[in-house]
């Protein structure tokens, strides 16, 4: 089956992604409530929204870094710009998220055009440093000079005396999409399991599917081919009559718009915007996500985003009490030892676990989690083809 201008393989791929995204609230609740493993459930709205939002952020980042190889260390600036735009629209117009999201995408595009135009005059490490400098500059401006626009340290939020000219008598008093309120959820109890279907999550998920489809089209387009060519040999590209500058700038602006959209969705879930969203750690996080998942692959950034957000939220929740419960059956000495050891990897120290995993992936799977998946698939195929040799060999491996 072919659909929406995609090849058969890509259509199947897209449909799988759509399916997985829609059933996420069920998939992420594999353990019944109250069981010892329930801590590892991730099917609550806040976290699922973050999966989708950071997925969008990483998909966009991958268009720049994965395709052209230009490593930006300043993408958090666009995230912040997106959030501020949305909150401003709440303050001026009302709680419908649509005007804010549109404004966020436009403003972050303009912002990316400016930063990209200057930064792309250099490549390699100098480009990274320039983008980092711009992002830190934006962060500091948001904190200090631009206080009238950003409300400085407190963060931008909606006050009762704001104009909100489009607010009617019965309009919802929290972010909504034409009446569908983001923080409302439907709950479903099946046996011991509880599934939460949150409006906000589905809103983010549908946006994520749309932008994933866009990135799929970009990957398969002549434009995407040129971006990949820039990564492998810019000299040859120039001597083939192609001007690499507008191509990289277009990629930079597109990925900036994705980041702006992600920032806008953050403020659509929670009507707040703070300068810390622009800090360099947030820029670094999306780099980690993309590399961990597999830069330059379609699925990689989404996997990486999910992986990091899962660890951030689940591992950081594990505390000493829970460790005591898990290891209670062991002899005392060993129990204390194991708890002491685990202590370094969970709770506030979850970064250590993430760091170790990141090292392992970079050393053993330079292509990220996607490469891991491909290796497993290959191993399974090889084993199967040993079983019924001739038949499996007729299928070309891709």
């Amino acid at each position, binding site marked *: 089956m072919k659909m929406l201008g995609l090849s058969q393989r890509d259509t199947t791929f897209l449909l799988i992604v759509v399916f997985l995204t829609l059933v996420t609230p069920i998939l992420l609740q594999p353990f019944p409530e109250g069981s010892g493993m329930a801590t590892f459930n991730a099917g609550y709205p806040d976290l699922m929204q973050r999966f989708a939002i950071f997925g969008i952020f990483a998909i966009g980042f991958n268009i720049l870094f994965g395709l052209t190889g230009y490593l930006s260390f300043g993408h958090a600036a666009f995230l912040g710009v997106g959030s501020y735009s949305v909150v401003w629209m709440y303050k001026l117009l009302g709680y419908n998220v649509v005007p804010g999201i549109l404004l966020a995408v436009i403003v972050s595009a303009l912002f990316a055009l400016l930063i990209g135009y200057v930064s792309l005059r250099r490549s390699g490490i100098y480009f990274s440093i320039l983008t980092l400098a711009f992002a830190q500059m934006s962060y500091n401006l948001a904190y200090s000079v631009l206080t009238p626009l950003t409300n400085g340290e407190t963060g931008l939020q909606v006050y009762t005396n704001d104009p909100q000219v489009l607010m009617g008598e019965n309009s919802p008093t929290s972010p909504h999409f034409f009446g569908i309120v983001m923080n409302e959820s439907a709950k479903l109890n099946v046996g011991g399991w509880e599934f939460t279907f949150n409006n906000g999550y589905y809103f983010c998920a549908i946006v994520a599917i749309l932008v994933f489809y866009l990135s799929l089209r970009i990957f398969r387009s002549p434009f995407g*081919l040129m971006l990949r060519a820039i990564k492998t*040999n810019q000299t*040859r590209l120039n001597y083939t009559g192609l001007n690499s500058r507008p191509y990289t700038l277009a990629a930079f602006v597109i990925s900036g718009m994705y980041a702006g959209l992600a920032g806008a969705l953050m403020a659509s879930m929670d009507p707040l915007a703070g300068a810390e969203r622009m800090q360099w750690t947030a820029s670094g996080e999306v780099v980690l996500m993309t590399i961990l998942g597999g830069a330059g692959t379609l699925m990689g950034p989404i996997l990486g985003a999910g992986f990091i957000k899962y660890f951030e939220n689940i591992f950081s929740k594990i505390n000493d009490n829970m460790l005591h419960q898990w290891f209670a059956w062991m002899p005392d000495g060993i129990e204390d030892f194991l708890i002491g050891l685990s202590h370094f990897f969970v709770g506030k120290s979850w970064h250590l676990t993430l760091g170790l995993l990141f090292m392992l992936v970079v050393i053993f799977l330079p292509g990220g989690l996607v490469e891991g998946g491909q290796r497993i698939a290959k191993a399974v195929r090889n084993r199967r083809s040993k079983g019924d040799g001739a038949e499996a060999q007729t299928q070309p491996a891709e």
Partner: protein
Amino acid sequence: MGILEVKNVGKRFGGLQALSDVNLSVQENTVHAIIGPNGAGKSTLLNCFVGKLIPDTGSVMFNGQSVLGLKPHQINQMGISRVFQTPEIFGDLTVMENVMISCFAKRDGAFRMHPFETVAHERDIVEQAEQMLTDVNMIDKRHMHAASMSRGDKRRLEMAMCLAQEPRLLLLDEPTAGMARADTNNTIDLLKEIKEKRDITMAIIEHDMHVVFSLAERITVLAQGTPLVEDTPENIKGHPKVKEAYLGEAA
């Protein structure tokens, strides 16, 4: 009037006068070789044609238009393609994609925003690229990773990429450098074949006299940044000034 007219070109790098007073005229539809000992300024001269270097003095006219100050991609779009000493190809892409990029550059110019078209649906580009690969006998390698090929094949691919643009002038910077004898002969045959099939002008920089005398119709000998002689291969072979430049005065 030649297709490429070089007048009084000079280039200095600090204390080194790399080129001085170079005059050269490459006639349309000929193979023009530029030879000379190491450090004669051959590569510097070539870099002045493609926009990598800007000469300090003089002019370089292609097809009646000055190329000085233009960017490499602009000069390429005028009709000059270049083959590098070490093949420059898109190593991470497939052979087919490499050639398709040239076809896109020919059709769409230096930049075109086309994010919602699909490469596989561009029938004319796919056909052109397949035709080009058939012409250079590489069609069976079209799905290969370009970086994984032998050096000879990389050279052949680079040639195909340049030809796919249908350039009026093809510049070759030591196309057989570092190649084994068999590969060198293959390259010579390929170049001869290209010359027979198309209206194309070639300027070759080369060390290997075997290559030069098999292909060139005109030869310019460069020594210490200035052209010594320009003549047909027959006359160059026994020219005393050429021997002197290559072997030193004692010879």
